[in-house]
């Protein structure tokens, strides 16, 4: 089983990111579940969402304590949240950032999702949309396939800019 924790702020689409990721994995023929840990609706507050991917049916509902991977969609949450908590030894970090960031003990990748979203004019109510471009980065890292990512995006969104942003992230993401 592969467990992923996604850090973001309310209103940035972090919960939808988890759903898109799970949907992509399901289109890859795997089993997947996605869930948020919710407080009440609150734009701007740090939130976490979770994804589990496995080759067999997933019967676990309790929260992910030791993720294999952590995704940070909004670097500012790191001021208030320990995004590395529980991350397994050898685990990976993917951060939305224009510059590489060091996470001692863990391998990390970065991609400027915000920049890509702004370039594609993928902005809703003032917030750049990060949850579709991040799929491109995850595809580059081999977590899901590019084709499944596109199918998932198109199932949830009619705006093709979402697919373009994912493609751009795939290209920009350096492994």
């Amino acid at each position, binding site marked *: 089983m592969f467990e992923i924790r996604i850090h973001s702020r309310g209103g940035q689409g972090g919960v939808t990111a*988890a*759903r898109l990721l*799970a*949907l992509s994995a*399901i289109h890859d023929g795997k*089993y*997947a*579940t*996605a*869930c*948020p*840990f*919710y407080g*009440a609706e609150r734009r701007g507050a740090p939130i976490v969402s979770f994804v589990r991917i496995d080759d067999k049916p*997933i*019967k*676990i*509902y*309790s*929260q992910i*304590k030791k993720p294999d991977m952590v995704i940070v969609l909004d670097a500012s949450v790191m001021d208030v949240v320990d995004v590395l908590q529980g991350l397994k030894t050898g685990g990976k970090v993917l951060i939305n950032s224009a510059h590489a960031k060091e996470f001692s003990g863990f391998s990390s990748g970065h991609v400027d999702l915000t920049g890509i979203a702004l370039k594609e004019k993928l902005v809703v109510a003032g917030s750049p949309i990060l949850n579709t471009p991040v799929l491109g980065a995850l595809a580059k890292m081999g977590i899901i396939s590019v084709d499944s990512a596109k199918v998932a995006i198109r199932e949830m969104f009619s705006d093709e800019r979402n697919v373009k942003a994912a493609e751009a992230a795939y290209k920009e993401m350096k492994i």
Partner: protein
Amino acid sequence: MKKIATGNKAVAEAVKQVIPGVVAAYPITPQTEIVEQIAEFVSSGELKSKYIAVESEHSAMAACIGASITGTRTFTATSSHGLLYMHEMTNWAAGARLPIVMANVNRSLGPGWNIWAEHTDALQERDTGWLQVYVSSVQEAYDATLMAFRIAEHNNVLLPVMVNLDGFTLSHIMQPLETVNLGDFIPPLHLAHAIDVTKPTAYGGLTGPDQQFRFRWDIERSMRDSVKVIEETETEFNKRFGRKYGFTEDYCCEDAEVVIVSMGTLGKEAEVAVDLLRKEGIKAGSMRLRWFRPFPKLDLEGKQVVVIDRDYSFGRGGILATEIMAQTREAVFSVIAGIGGQEVTYDDIADFVRNRRIGEEFWFGVSDRV
């Protein structure tokens, strides 16, 4: 058709297919996605129902009662305090013999305000005459909602049915969902006692001590008859759609020496605990109770029982444990866990079994042993 959906969306999807005439509902976390999705289906024309955005849950059930007695299929959804606020009317709905179906997203009771999973809300409804089923996956939430309408509307039942799903843990989690082609699985509703201006009748008027008990017995008689209707419905569902359900979902129980009994998503997580325990040489099994009312005959003969109650009845004990002990007349290890969304993992469940003390009650997080 294969999709992916949250527990809440799966319920709404099922409701869309059964086409209720009226949906009357009020928002409450974590149920709101159900009513929002239904409102959207109605607004887009995908669902030709009348959606009433009532001003409270008491009114939601009262509106459902008013709609249902005209012979119209009716649905609502709620949680926790909404269900509590509805309680006078849930009693009324069952007493009025109305086949209303309601999804209840199990949530804890305040004060303090706690929006996470707990079963006390629905279990407090156990005396009302409502049938109650507890589901543990998105697929099951969809399937159980479909079956609920068929069961409720059966002439031998004519009692409302509550489909329970764990708040957030199931309502908001996303899992694969396969929808079905209903065909004639749910026959059209013909409510024999519906309002008919050509046959004017008074409903639920003044009734004396020499008559009232007959009506209450009638509810119980139908509750007993519903057992067969549930069996037939689940058999027919399996025949048509290839998914089998029962009063319980048993995992490794045949040769088990100790059985974990629980409801909802904990019942699935318990299966993972069973796998762990079996590796250690402990012959454990999991029995996930699905139907709480009517309460089924449980096959626990000769086995030690660890009951996990995600609820409590103050001054008496875990509600599930109490019901089981009343039936089996045997002591159990009664674990109280998951209250207010308290985290309970398969490791914790395995520990409950490893350290079980039959005849005792253990409050996870409070009692300092285990």
